[in-house]
């Protein structure tokens, strides 16, 4: 069997002895525990005043609900309290530096939220006659123009709903292009072993066999190995640039040229675009498709796990295969929507529709607002400050934590450390949990897989120097404790709303919905 290389293994948490005095409520001052709505709400309670039910006979065809649903309700004050209390158990960008590598946790400007809520954007239906939504199409078109110009590409597919969805779009466009050339026999996609899991998952979905390209000792693709593997069976190469080790792939253009020479395509995972936006155009490096995470580079909110948005910029070779629908500007200046019906003779090669309606309009308004706020000069400064902040962290901590690629030159927007040098029995996980007590969300851990016990730190550009200095001090302190074998780290975090949770039990005996507890008395 294969044994996973990352070094992570699950451990049941050791029981902590709690020495603080007990409270009647179980609360600890401002740390308020909050039950589930099912435990405090009632099916009879409602926090909404509804109109009188109009007169009339129902015509539900005999399908009237007979059974109860089991949905609890709360009054408005109770509802606000419930969610406010829950929100206070979350770390967030608004609270502090969020160093998750490859996630680009930058500040989410509130102007974005204000603009997205303008009724002209928030209260329009996707199927309204196109004359009544020209402004909405205008937003999509304007954002598309920015993305094309920033990346130096030919067109952009706006409809994918997230980064992984965008990857799928790019790979399917590549497949359509190859099929159109009669090259459907190409069955292999090459993916660096440091790639994010969505890359091989996407390639496999599209029916390709995934082959890994090893990383060199310097943390980049082993270019020789990749070039040696190229052949007529290779459909595409998927490359992240800057890569998941936080380094710029110097040989990108060479690789692109070589892949094109054998008739393949280059897909670029744009998750790390924040390092180069406004400084480098990926189109100049020969790529054919790249998804852009609007929720990373362009500040649309992460929201606790989506929604995201993943438009895909495309080369001239791939543009004819872009999915439906998309917006075009006509010669009279008005916008039209190209759907299945209007694809007709102009866009007969589209590989099809990926999603109902037009895509993540709410994210488009936010991203366009962000882009207009920064402008070309501001965006360039974004990349510069992001890279500066990451290098500052790298150089400040390379004496404390092992930084496997620090000697080979600067990093881009993220700094990579490993668990080499931590005391026996101490892991990256312990460093992460220790950092929580210091008031920070941990960095990305155990990714990329090519480094043992990886710690990937991405500060982004929206951090002050003072904030970064504090973070450096905190990580240095925790790392020193881990190197010294400080046992209190094994039971960290001590100050969070919860201590380490038993993920093994959650997986062995999944409890995914709330069920009415069987009362001991009733069970007798």
């Amino acid at each position: 069997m294969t044994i996973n290389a990352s070094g992570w293994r699950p451990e049941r948490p050791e029981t902590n002895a709690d020495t603080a005095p007990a409270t009647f409520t179980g609360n600890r001052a401002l740390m308020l525990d909050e039950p589930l709505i099912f435990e405090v709400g009632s099916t009879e309670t409602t926090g909404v005043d509804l109109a009188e039910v109009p007169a009339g006979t129902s015509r539900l065809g005999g399908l009237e609900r007979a059974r109860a649903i089991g949905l609890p309700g709360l009054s408005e004050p109770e509802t606000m309290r419930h969610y406010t209390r829950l929100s206070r158990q979350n770390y967030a960008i608004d609270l502090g530096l969020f160093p998750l590598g490859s996630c680009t946790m930058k500040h989410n400007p509130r102007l974005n939220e204000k603009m997205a809520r303008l009724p002209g954007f928030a209260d329009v239906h996707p199927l309204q006659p196109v004359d009544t939504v020209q402004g909405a199409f205008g937003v999509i078109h304007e954002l598309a123009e920015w993305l094309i110009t920033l990346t130096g590409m030919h067109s952009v597919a706006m409809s994918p709903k997230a980064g992984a969805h965008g990857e799928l779009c790019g790979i399917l466009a590549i497949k359509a292009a190859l099929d159109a050339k009669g090259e459907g026999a190409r069955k292999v996609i090459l993916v660096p072993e440091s790639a994010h899991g969505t890359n091989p998952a996407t390639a496999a979905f599209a029916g390709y066999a995934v082959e890994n390209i090893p990383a060199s000792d310097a943390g980049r693709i082993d270019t020789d190995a990749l070039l040696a593997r190229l052949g007529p069976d290779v459909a595409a190469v998927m490359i992240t640039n800057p890569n998941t080790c936080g380094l710029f792939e110097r040989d990108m253009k060479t690789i692109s040229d070589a892949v094109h020479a054998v008739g393949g395509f280059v897909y670029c995972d744009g998750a790390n675009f924040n390092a180069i936006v406004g400084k480098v155009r990926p189109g100049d490096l020969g790529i054919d498709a790249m998804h852009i995470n609007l929720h990373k580079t362009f500040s649309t909110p992460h929201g606790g796990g989506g929604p995201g948005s993943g438009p895909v910029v495309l080369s001239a070779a791939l543009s004819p295969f872009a999915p439906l629908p998309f917006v075009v500007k006509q010669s009279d200046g008005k916008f039209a929507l190209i759907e299945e019906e209007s694809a007709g003779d102009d866009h007969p090669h589209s590989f099809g529709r990926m999603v109902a309606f037009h895509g993540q309009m709410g994210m488009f308004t936010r991203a366009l607002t962000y882009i207009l706020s920064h402008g070309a000069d501001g965006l360039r400064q974004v990349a510069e400050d992001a890279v500066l902040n990451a290098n500052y962290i790298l150089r400040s901590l390379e004496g404390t934590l092992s930084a496997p690629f620090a000697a080979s030159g600067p990093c881009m927007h993220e700094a990579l450390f490993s668990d080499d040098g931590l005391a026996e029995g101490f892991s990256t996980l312990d460093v992460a949990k220790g950092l929580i007590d210091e008031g920070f969300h941990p960095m990305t851990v155990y990714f990329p897989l090519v480094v043992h016990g990886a710690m990937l730190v991405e500060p982004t550009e929206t951090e002050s120097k003072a904030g970064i200095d504090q973070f450096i001090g905190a990580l240095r302190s925790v790392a020193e404790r881990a190197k010294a074998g400080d046992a209190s780290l094994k039971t960290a975090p001590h100050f969070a709303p919860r201590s380490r949770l038993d993920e093994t039990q959650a997986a062995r005996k999944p409890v995914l919905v709330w069920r009415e507890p069987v009362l001991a008395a009733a069970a007798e």
Partner: protein
Amino acid sequence: MRYLPLTDTDRQAMLATIGAATIDDLFVDVPEAARLSGPIAGLPMHASEMAVERHMSALAAKNVAAGSVPFFLGCGAYKHHVPASVDHIIQRGEFLTAYTPYQPEIAQGTLQVMFEFQTQVARLLGTDVANASMYDGSTACWEAIGMARRITKRAKAILSPGLHPHYVSVAKTMAKYTGDALDTATPTLDDDFGIDALIAKIDGETSCVVVQYPDILGRIADLTALADACHANKALLIAVVTEPVALGAIRSPGEMDADIVVGEGQSLGVGLQFGGPYVGLFGCKDKYVRQMPGRLCGETVDAEGKRGFVLTLSTREQHIRREKATSNICTSSVLCALAMSAHMTLLGEAGLRRLAEINHLGAAAAADRLAQVPGVEVVSNAFFNEFTLKLPREARPVVRALADRGILAGVSLGRLYPGDGDLANGLVIAVTETTTQDDVEALARALAEELA
């Protein structure tokens, strides 16, 4: 620039620590030829909040907002009143700017919301379990078809004619890569949901039957016989719900023994938003949970024995299984799930049932009023809050003409099924609690004038 905290003094100090002379030295790995020498030419420079607001407001002003005119569009996205609190809840920075809860000790807020959402959705859909959301209803639908293929190891999926044409289009696109063979058909402009015709198509090669409930023309039907027929042939029944408010009035597909129930949660909490972001719902029977795509939150305890929540069954997902994952999906739509969950909490069961009643009876009254317009026939006998009219001529130009008069008169079937002569006179009307009697009257009068 207001979002960039570093000063030039800071930058100099940091460069000194790094040991670099300029920031461009840090970009040394970028080939010279690819390095841009300055901001990209032809693009505007940075702008103040005021300037950006002006620009975006001008674009917004070019759109006709649903709330500003009589409005009757549905077909997969519905206008409902979202209580004011919901928007405040989702704008709390700890929800808005939080990340996926991979460090559960400091993400119990998001995780508990996910757990509550999963429970609410499972109960609403009538399934044993539900996940923490998908991108939207259309992607949830094709993922369900893929899941049925994995479970049954068969590849023939029968899609009901009543399934939203965009959802069908998405499924057809994806089927090209998954090897699923899809049996599809366009609907007929009548009252027939098509249960018998679907049953007749099921055989030993069928992986699943996919129905929409209520369907694209607003029709509803008992799915029990269809579920039985599927199971007799060891196939799965997948039900798609694009209007969850309906489930406040009619039986859930899970109750009728559907195996997988997916849908679009947009109606509750999310708003029209011109098509996205929305929130995909995905529920299924317990025995299929390991085949379900998407994130799942589970209950557990911490080291002190306190109840807590964590992401679980992660080994189905791409970041672990990579090429063997159940799906390539990475993110979900948690902020929209929070909005839906908060809206459902504010409504409660009694509120949802009453809201559904108001929707249904309002729609019934509107149907009766529109049936009085000369030449207009109401096609649907049983429906929830959406029904179909048959006009004496093509509906699509009528919709455009009415839009010019300031009425957004529903979705013509010509828009959804262009070129289909049998459907061209069809017009789908949605009525919710936001529709007033005046709105209905305005539509009826304008329709009468237009058709005269």
